[in-house]
């Protein structure tokens, strides 16, 4: 009486695709960031799903660490974001192109 793996994965893929679309097609930096977090979560879901299917606690442990790392990354990422925003006064990534040739 448990959730079939296929369902879990379908949801995971769907969320991942959404996150990808958001990351590539939006100009708002905050939205892009959130989309990336979405992708991370989709992956977490998939891992937990596999863990449930296979047994044991490995999957959960991995996701545990993934969440911690995501937190750290979010903190630093937002700090960078704020610094960039202060410099450019815009969050439109199209306009932040200092590395352009």
């Amino acid at each position, binding site marked *: 009486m448990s959730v079939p793996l296929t369902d879990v994965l379908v949801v995971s893929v769907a969320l991942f695709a959404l996150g*990808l679309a958001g*990351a*590539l097609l939006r100009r708002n930096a905050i939205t892009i960031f959130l989309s990336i977090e979405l992708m991370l979560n989709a992956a977490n879901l998939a891992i937990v799903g596999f863990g449930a299917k296979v047994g044991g606690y490995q999957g959960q442990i991995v996701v545990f660490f993934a969440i911690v790392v995501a937190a750290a990354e979010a903190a630093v990422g937002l700090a960078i974001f704020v610094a960039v925003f202060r410099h450019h006064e815009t969050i439109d*990534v*199209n306009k*932040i*192109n*200092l*590395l*352009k*040739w």
Partner: protein
Amino acid sequence: MIPLWLLPLLPFAGFLLCGLLGRRLGKTFVTVCGVGSVALTTVLAYARLVPYAAGVFGGNAAPVVERYGSWIRAGNVAVDFAMRLDPLSALMLSFVTFVGLLIHVYSVGYMHAEEGYWRYFSYLNLFMFSMLTLVLGANFLILFVGWEGVGLCSYLLIAFDYQKESSARAGRKAFVANRVGDFGFLIGLFLILGLFGTLEFDRIFPAAAAAPGRFAPAMTAIALCLFVGACGKSAQLPLYVWLPDAMAGPTPVSALIHAATMVTAGVYVVARANVFFRLSPTAMAVVAIVGGATALFAAIIGTAQTDIKKVLAYSTISQLGYMFLACGVGAFVAGMFHVLTHAFFKALLFLGSGSVIHGMGGEQDMRRMGGLRRALPVTFWTFLAATLAIAGIPIWAGFFSKDEILGAVFARNPILWGIGFLAAGLTSFYMFRVVYLTFFGTFRGTEEEKRHLHESPPSMTIPLVILAVLSTAGGLVGLPALLGPRANLFHRFLDPIVPPITGGAALGRGAQVAELSRGTEIALIAASVGIALLGWIVARVCYSGDRAGTIPERFVRAFPGVHLLVSNKFYVDELYEAVIYRPFRRLSRMFWKVVDTLVIDGLINAGSFLVELSGDLLRFFTTGNVRNYALTFLLGIVALLAYLGWAPR
């Protein structure tokens, strides 16, 4: 026991001292080091030579070979640092050191006003080092080190006054002509190494002599290659063109290098390798013909030169021709005898001319000299002694050596003898011409020069006197066989260097010096003396007395073409210029403009151009737009997954 390696080392030390410290420490220091090193070497050399010579005359002519360790060990090739004392190298050692010392002493006086005094003596010492290495080497490679060294020093000393364009050019010409010869020499060395597996004298020559049948076929090639090197170094046809130009260097340099020592290195090599030559009648013929032709050719040119040093230069070329002529007919010992006597009288002639030039304040054109015997008596008398020697008047030294050569040549080939005979007459003629033009008659220079005329200081005249004594009495070591077999000390000393070749009468025929009957020998001596005297008389008639100069003038008017040809050295330099230098320069130009600039540089530039181009193209990928980068990631991942997921299926 004084080691042989010390002998070249002392002048080398002198070179370093004069070269590195001479400029700062002054002329006295340079004199002491420069002359002292050679003096010390001479003393030590004779300390070795005297006992050795005594041994040779006592019957023991075994060569002394000193080995100092290995130099090259590569596969089958093994070359050691080794020096060799045998009759031939002992002979060379004896006069190279002594005459070298005399010239060093002379240079002190001659060059005393020179700014580059320190440079001069350091080069001269370096030359002595190289020459001694050359003659003392026990294998062809050590010899070659010295060979190259003397070539280098020749260049350095000819172009001593390097600020002058003509001197620099003369130096280059000497070096390049030598190089051509060296190329042949090197080929010869390679052939020797390939054939014998070693370059050591004491292994090669006995091996060749013991098994002539096995080695004879290659001998022609090897001998001719070595001879090419000798032609370059000893200024024979066609590589002689550098020697007259080399007169641009200081006169003592001409005396030492281009009369007594370096130019005789070629004869030394031929004598050293006499076994090779004797195994190849072809090579012998070539040597003899080239020697004879050169002797005559140079003598002809010498008759029409007006610069006193140029006459002596062509005279040197001519006399060297005699030496090779001797070797070519198998009379190697006679050739070396002439080397010895020539060293004495030619050095004396050059030093004497230096004295004249010094007294004339730098003037070298004989047409502006005349009657100098009163102002420069010592110079005159010593110069006369040398002239008598070179002309072949008995009992002066040149008579004995030249006569021996002509005798040997006549026994082999009367035609070659005729050439040599003619050249002897011309030699006497042009040398006495010099004497009469320079020392007799009325002075033809300026008043200023006349007042300046003075005899040279003792540092210059003493060597002249010593050399004059040697030129007069030096021939007595080689008295002709006429006076008994034991009379000829020279032959007793040097004969061991021409070992007998076993087996094969056919090979022996060209190898031994043919014998002459007593009558023939006396007749030949009479003929030689006769033509020498004839030359003297003609010169006297033409250039001395009240009607001096009239006969030559009439000759020139009657045969203007001949005179033009001869006085312009048969236009050989111009010929070389047109046939060799100009095409070569054009070829070099082509290599420069086309191959180097266009092709090679072009290739490199094309490479860098491509890099730049690709950079310019790839630049467009760096948009600075994060989304582009993310997109690229995505597409890459998709591609990867597709490959992993589908391709292996």
